């Protein structure tokens, strides 16, 4: 398709203008028109010989009238329905010099800043399929923006904020990732509210040790649901962007921690102490387990890593509580709840209370953070891990 060797003739231009040229030929012609002024003029003349030119002039008149702010009733009403739909589409394809330049540019100007009572730039009726209307077809049959959509209207959407850009809130939510938007958030609220409800509503004793045993798992689960092939439907695209990798992992983890730490600690504070460690005692273990999950994710992938750390914590806390000295573990499961809660409280105290335990958790957190920093490039491609 060389611009210099091939040109339209009057027959071809006429067939293009009246829409009888087959699709494939029309495509070639349009491509050629982009670079050949002579042929563009020829097609332009061919269009002028059809009825389109008159309608086009009317549309132009109406658009200019709108632009001046003085909107005579005639312009609004008199633009024939077919002109609103068909002509701009036609104009775009068939009269490149005129339509692409002058008319839609004006239309864009009009449709942009000032909200219009009847925006002429938007077809009010479904455009009939003409050969000129060759943007992507939509099957819906509804109003199509196939009219002067090329010279773009400035983008506006009430939901994503004004013309200045997307709203700050939207960006914060984007950064938070899938977990904080999805089922995980509901789960956190259910755990926190449920714990308080159990303690005061149902009068169950020893809810705080239970909450402390569960709390470190919550941010770990949040991490599992934030990143990676299994959790993020957008993962494949995310992984190919500069934001993918450790930075996005950390941003999303921060969001997870930002939601779960205050909520669960507050719930813990509201619960009766019943001999359990303080409500904030889980914070360092929670952080350490979260960071350990991230560090392990560099080797195992997020899903396996969070399963290992979360499972490890449960084993460390529950197994000694279930398998104390004396009766068989199964009998112990059936034992009165109080005994179990007492054992759990003892085990939690061993894990969480005192400067030694807390110091160990802090050290673990620092160690995992250091490992993360060293292995940061592993997060670029978590694929197949």
């Amino acid at each position, binding site marked *: 398709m060389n611009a210099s060797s091939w040109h339209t003739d009057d027959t071809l231009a006429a067939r293009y203008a009246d829409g009888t040229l087959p699709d494939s030929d029309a495509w070639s012609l349009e491509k050629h028109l982009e670079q050949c002024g002579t042929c563009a003029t020829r097609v332009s003349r061919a269009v002028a010989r059809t009825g389109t030119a008159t309608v086009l002039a009317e549309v132009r008149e109406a658009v200019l009238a709108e632009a001046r702010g003085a909107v005579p009733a005639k312009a609004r009403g008199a633009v024939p329905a077919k002109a609103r739909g068909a002509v701009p589409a036609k104009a775009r394809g068939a009269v490149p010099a005129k339509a692409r330049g002058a008319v839609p540019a004006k239309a864009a100007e009009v449709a942009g800043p000032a909200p219009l009572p009847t925006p002429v730039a938007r077809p009010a009726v479904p455009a009939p399929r003409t050969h000129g209307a060759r943007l992507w077809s939509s099957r819906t049959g509804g109003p199509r923006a196939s009219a002067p959509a090329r010279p773009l209207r400035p983008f506006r959407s009430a939901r994503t904020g004004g013309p200045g850009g997307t709203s700050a809130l939207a960006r914060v939510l984007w950064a938070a990732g899938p977990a904080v938007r999805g089922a995980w958030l509901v789960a956190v609220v259910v755990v926190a509210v449920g714990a308080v409800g159990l303690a005061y509503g149902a009068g169950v004793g020893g809810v705080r040790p239970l909450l402390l045993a569960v709390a470190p798992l919550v941010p770990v689960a949040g991490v599992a649901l934030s990143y990676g092939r299994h959790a993020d439907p957008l993962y494949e695209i995310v992984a190919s962007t*500069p934001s993918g990798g450790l930075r996005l992992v950390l941003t999303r983890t921060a969001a997870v921690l930002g939601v779960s730490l205050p909520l669960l600690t507050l719930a813990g504070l509201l619960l009766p102490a019943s001999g359990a460690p303080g409500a904030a005692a889980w914070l360092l273990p929670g952080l350490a387990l979260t960071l350990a999950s991230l560090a392990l994710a560099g080797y195992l992938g997020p899903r396996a890593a969070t399963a290992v750390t979360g499972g490890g914590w449960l084993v460390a806390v529950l197994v000694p509580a279930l398998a104390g000295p004396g009766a068989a573990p199964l009998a112990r499961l059936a034992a009165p709840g109080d005994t179990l809660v007492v054992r759990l409280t003892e085990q939690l105290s061993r894990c969480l209370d005192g400067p030694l335990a807390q110091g160990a958790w802090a050290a673990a957190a620092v160690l995992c953070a250091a490992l993360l920093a060293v292995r940061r490039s592993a997060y670029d491609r978590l694929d197949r891990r």
Partner: protein
Amino acid sequence: MSTIRVTGLHVRHRRTVALDTVDLALGRGVHGLLGPNGAGKTSLIRVLSTVARPSAGRVEILGEDVGDPRRCGPVRARLGYLPQEFGYYPGFTVSEFVAYVAWLKELPAADTPAAVARAVARVGLADRADAKVRTLSGGMIRRVGIAQAIVNDPDVLLLDEPTAGLDPEQRVEFRALLRELGATATVIVSTHLVEDVAAACTEVTLLDAGRVAYRGTPASLSALGERTGPDGMGDNPIERGYSAALRAHRTGAEALR
């Protein structure tokens, strides 16, 4: 001037070899990536999109070695990638989805709205910009995928089976968009539809069993088909050329053994 240079590329999925010593140099234009299922088309595109890591070999995109994670970031900002299968967040509208990808690609916030509107309009979804993605048909979702890939006006655009789910008319329109994009960018389109390649591509790379079986232009592939005559497999010269090139590669590979 090659924007993509691949040397000695090996990709392995567990025990199966997806790509075996692939060498390629691709410049501006529309490159069709053809081949039977399992030939390694998706593996190659995923390596080029920096999502998958090759087991061996060197991949240079826009002059940077993307095996080096520190060089990856700037290259990724200039990439566009449509995966074969991609998901979306159910609550997002078309323009929110595209704007989100623009944010991931670190487009300046001030430019994002205009870039999003342009990308959405280029795939013909301007009238659906505020519709939830989950309410769209399969073909429209595919177009949303194309919009997110082109939102940053990428220098390298990787499209894995972009015409799947588009009806014939939409495919014709899509090819025109491809030609337009190929004027300024390196566009790589994997497809198993030979006619897409014939209509839209400037160059053809044929993969078979993880190796490059043929490189040329749609015209040279057609010429190969003409030579085999009408008794070759396929309904038109380029399809016959496709099967002839595959056959030639396979017999050649047998002979080497």
